[in-house]
């Protein structure tokens, strides 16, 4: 365990932060601008994991294991979310023969 922590600390904290923010921004741009619902789901995962990465890094630098425990919880939630999200994709494909979210414009008053 200690080796992993020290291995993480080999790289300065700023690098982790920059990498995480970059990944998060890529994910956010993808969510905002892609039309393919599968790509949007993937971008969501990217945002999740950038947050996870940062949690693990901070956890190591602050010698506080609870950050890593939190990461596991996020993974479980992400897994559940994917299961729901993919089933929505399947239903969408069956109903409108497409994965373009702009076709889902009937969800209004």
């Amino acid at each position, binding site marked *: 365990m200690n080796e992993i922590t020290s291995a993480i600390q080999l790289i300065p904290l700023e690098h982790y932060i920059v990498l995480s923010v970059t990944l998060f921004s890529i994910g*956010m741009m993808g*969510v*905002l*601008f892609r*039309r393919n619902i599968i790509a949007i789901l993937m971008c969501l995962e990217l945002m999740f994991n950038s947050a996870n990465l940062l949690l693990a890094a901070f956890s190591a630098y602050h010698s506080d294991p609870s950050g890593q425990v939190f990461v596991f919880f996020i993974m479980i939630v992400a897994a559940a979310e994917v299961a729901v999200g993919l089933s929505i994709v399947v239903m969408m494909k069956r109903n409108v023969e497409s994965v373009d*979210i*702009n076709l*889902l*414009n*009937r*969800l*209004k*008053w």
Partner: protein
Amino acid sequence: MVEQIPNINLAWLVPAFPLLGFLVTGLANKRLKHNQAGIIASAMVLLSFLVSLVLFFVLRASGQNEATVTLFNWISIGGMNIPFAFLIDHLSLTMMLIITGVGALIHIYSIGYMHDDGRVNSFFAQMNLFTFSMLLLVMGANYLVLFIGWEGVGLCSYLLIGFWFKNPAYNYAARKAFVMNRIGDLGFILGIIVLFFTFKTVTFSEIFSQAAGFQAGAPVITLITLLLLVGAVGKSAQIPLFTWLPDAMAGPTPVSALIHAATMVTAGIYMIARSSILYNLAPFTLNIIIVIGLATAIIAALIGLKQNDIKKVLAYSTVSQLGYMFLALGLGAYSAGVFHVTTHAFFKALLFLGAGSVIHAMGGEQDIRKMGGLRKKMPLTYFTFLAATLAISGIPPFSGFFSKDLILSKAFEHSIILYILALGGALITCFYMFRLLYLVFFGEQRLAGAHPHESPKVMTIPLIILSVLSVFGGFLNIPSLFNGDSKFITFLQTAVVSKASEELSHSTEIGLILGSLLLLGLVIFFAYRTFVSKSIIPAKDEEPMPFFSKLISNKFYIDEMYTAVFEKPFGFLSDFFYNKVENTVLDPAVDEIGVTTARVGALLRKLQQGNMSFYLFAMVAGILLFIIFILIV
């Protein structure tokens, strides 16, 4: 602690029987055959009467003066502890015997009187509920139990006045009685609150023992007694709240006899007599009671002179007699007041039942100008009515003589002016009662086509019993003047603390009695000459009258005055609030709020287009704004 009197716990049976009767006749209303309800109801009240008699003898045998029967602990919060208890003493026993005794006779009479009514079963249910409430009122050992009964009788009075509810005028009369009584009840409940605030209890015995610590004329006692007086004035139909009682004659005649003559209207007198210890400490209130009582006695008697409805005459006479009872209370002669309650219950119930018998025979006609000559057709009714008339006029040895003479002599002790005014009222009473008697029973029959007949036995037997009571009821309290020992007054003395007063010398008393007898004789002779020898019939309503008689026959315009002073301004205020405040301010304001909300909604609806990318964009933008907000602030 006094030791428990054996069998006194039977007391709970007294109100239980009428309650049971009410439940049976009320719930099985539709299933009972036509006359069963009346028989059940009468039997229940009769049983109640028997139990009351048993209680009377039990208490006498025990040698004690009072007993408290606690049924259960009713309210117990913090320092407040109010048991549901009955107080059995000489005052409550007297009232119980009157209520159940006279009540039973009236119930039996009603079987005959209400025979042809379609809702006779409901009638008896309500009568039994009334008897139950009235018993609760007089038996309660604290002011709250008294108050339950007080409200219960008010409700039953409302129901029974409006018993023939298909007539809007009767409904109006019922409502009027209810509202007038509410005014009184407000004073009463405020009085109870101040009582509790002062004494930290509402139980009679505790309050009265604590009251000894107060000085005569203490402001808080005066306040309490005044507030209680407001309640009594409303219930007992005194000025200024008396106008409901004459209108209450809209109810069936037995109701008038039971509720508006013998029992309910005497509740106020009972309550003041019960609180005699408090009233003795408030001379100011007592003086007000004297003024109210005397004014009511005389004004109501004057109005009675010109009434032409047989029941209205009796109603005003009731108001006037209640005024005499108030006068007695105000003079501190509480037991004299209760004695007059007793004799009045006998002869006034008899008068009303007799009037009912006449109305029954005349096929519903109540106008005395159309009657006449009934003496031959209805001898039984005539003789019983005559006995009651003699009693109410105060002719010895009938019962009214003893009670009224007691009050008059108390008035004489107080001041000669009071005596003269009270005697004047008594003379007027005598005149209008004989006017009624002569117009109804003497002369020729004036209503063509009517075939009056004597009422059935079920109606005449109660009349006979009541007339015996009216004739001999006065012997309960033979004053020392006639070698008696004032039994009734002495009997009540343990429960009611009357003010001490020096006895009049026997020679003065004999002089007063002879003087008043002479005047009564003159009045009767004058009435006889006017209505029998000259056979003058009161003028029709449309004919013009001199000013004073017009004033009297319009009841001094008191109803009109109340309309002008209270009803009109109140209606005007309601109109103002409806037209101006409600219709121009409140309603549009509420409407505007709704309309604006709908408009804003329609505007915001355009944002929701169903485009998911847009939603996501809005979400991210929102989060970003939120973060910026946090970073800045």
